């Protein structure tokens, strides 16, 4: 059994997310075949594999953008099937996208405040009457957004439109927005893509801090060094199948993984 590096033993073996025999196909193309994996509370879990291996498809299933064709999906003690994305968001799964999907013409702060949507409730009438509860909630939202901007390090420009932020800032803003939904599981789709070495180092620190706050992190990444440094456990997908799972050192020396990445037959 791999050890969890930061949290105490009682929590270490508690699976937050469990996928059992997940199938997904698009027409005749099998995108995911019999994928089983479980992610424990509080770990950083890496998902790697060549392009087209089904990593993003798995993310889309987790967040309800795709419906699975077979298997079960348990999260935080509940089983989910054919659920709408907002249900899964409410359950505590948040994600970022490989290609950044912010609200470009809204300010950084507003982007994060949209993330508070689920956890706030004021309707149109309360807001228009400037009801005290509505004003308080609005203030709390703004306050929380400022804290999160501070947390990811873009507090200097909260009123900048998202489209005018630098690339690295946009990536971090997307993480702040996802955190605003109060997730239990934060799923990041290639967060380091296009980042330089300094930005990647910052990202690494940020993800550690997030995990230390008790949020479980699921990470798709092509930067092998980052994955090896950061993750407690790793699963490798190839052609929609899980070909390996384990601690970074185990996975790195797995012959099937080497074959998938470098080509050729497993030695």
């Amino acid at each position, binding site marked *: 059994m791999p050890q969890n590096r930061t949290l105490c033993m009682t929590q270490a073996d508690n699976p937050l997310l469990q996928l059992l025999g997940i199938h997904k196909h698009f027409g005749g193309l099998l995108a995911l075949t019999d994928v089983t994996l479980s992610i424990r509370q509080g770990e950083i879990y890496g998902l790697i594999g060549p392009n087209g291996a089904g990593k993003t498809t798995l993310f889309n299933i987790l*967040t309800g*953008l795709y419906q699975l064709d077979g298997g079960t999906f348990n999260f935080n003690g509940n089983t989910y099937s054919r659920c709408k*994305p*907002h249900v899964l*968001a*409410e359950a505590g799964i*948040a*994600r970022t*996208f490989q290609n950044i*999907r*912010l*609200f*470009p*013409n*809204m300010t950084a702060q*507003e982007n994060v*405040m*949209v*993330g*508070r*949507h*689920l956890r*706030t409730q*004021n*309707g*149109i009438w309360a*807001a*228009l009457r400037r009801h005290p509860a*509505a004003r308080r*909630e*609005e203030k709390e*939202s703004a306050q929380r957004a400022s804290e999160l901007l501070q947390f990811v390090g873009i507090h200097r420009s909260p009123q900048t439109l998202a489209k005018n932020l630098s690339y690295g800032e946009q990536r971090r803003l997307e993480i702040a*927005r996802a955190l605003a*939904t109060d997730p239990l599981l934060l799923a990041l789709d290639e967060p380091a893509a296009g980042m330089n070495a300094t930005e990647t180092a910052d990202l690494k620190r940020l993800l550690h801090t997030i995990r230390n706050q008790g949020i479980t992190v699921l990470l798709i990444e092509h930067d092998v060094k980052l994955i090896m440094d950061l993750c407690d456990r790793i699963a490798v997908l190839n052609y929609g199948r899980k070909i390996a799972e384990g601690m970074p050192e185990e996975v790195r020396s797995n012959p099937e993984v080497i074959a998938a990445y470098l080509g050729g037959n497993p030695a």
Partner: protein
Amino acid sequence: MEIFLQQLINGLVQGSVYALVALGYTMVYGILGLINFAHGEVVMVGAMVALMSINAMLGSAFPPAIILPVALFAAIFACMLLGYSIERIAYRPLRHAPRLAPLITAIGVSIVLQTLAMIIWGREYHAFPQLFPNQSHNFGGAVINDVQLAIIIIALLVMSMLMLLVHRTRLGRAMRAVAENQSAAILMGININQVISITFMLGSALAAIAGIMVSANYGVVHYYMGFMLGLKAFTAAVLGGIGNLRGAMLGGVLLGLIESLGAGYIGTLTGGFMGSNYQDAFAFLVLIGVLIFRPSGLLGERVADRA
């Protein structure tokens, strides 16, 4: 000079109405990328429902100060219901269809509503009763009456409330988020269908208010009144940059002014060859001009890439 001032006032009044209706077009376009050509008919239905409510209450003991708000709320309620139903029945099933399909459907809905209104309320012009004494005020040689003043003030009030709603509230942020990136908005837990329904209902409420304004100003209601008004408000939305709320308001007021100043001076400019009956032509000259020289509109950024 008096003519200029008078046409300025007329233009502002007409422009306020255009702005309210244009907001309905632009809000729906912003979120769905769809031109809701049935929106003008919603204005007409608002006017008709208000008229029916007023006529039903006129013989009773209710004072005008009660009749008008009741009629206003009846019209707003009816239009919100209509706007909701139009989206639910006509547009939602076509959400993922090619862009041309909902556009044609919109024109179809417009024709259906016109015909239904004709069957229900007849082909004749109905007089819109005057509930309050409508006093005229002299204003530097030009005349403005109470109804016109009320139109400008209420339009300003309603538009500032809308801006407050869109820019300072949770619902407004959700609306903008859906307009900007639907898939990201979904993952923030925003119920897209609900936001789209609310958008249609808000636009329709503005249309109801505009319908009552037009009827009170001209004193007539007709089943066909929404058609030209809708086209012009659409022009106003395009002029300001469709999808942009401030643009719709600016475009509405500008179009009102262009029309009214144009109609006021065209007689003098052409030596009496053309008269103010060419008023309608100005709106469409503006539309053609905008589409040729600045398709994204005055405040718009991206060029519309959808039908």
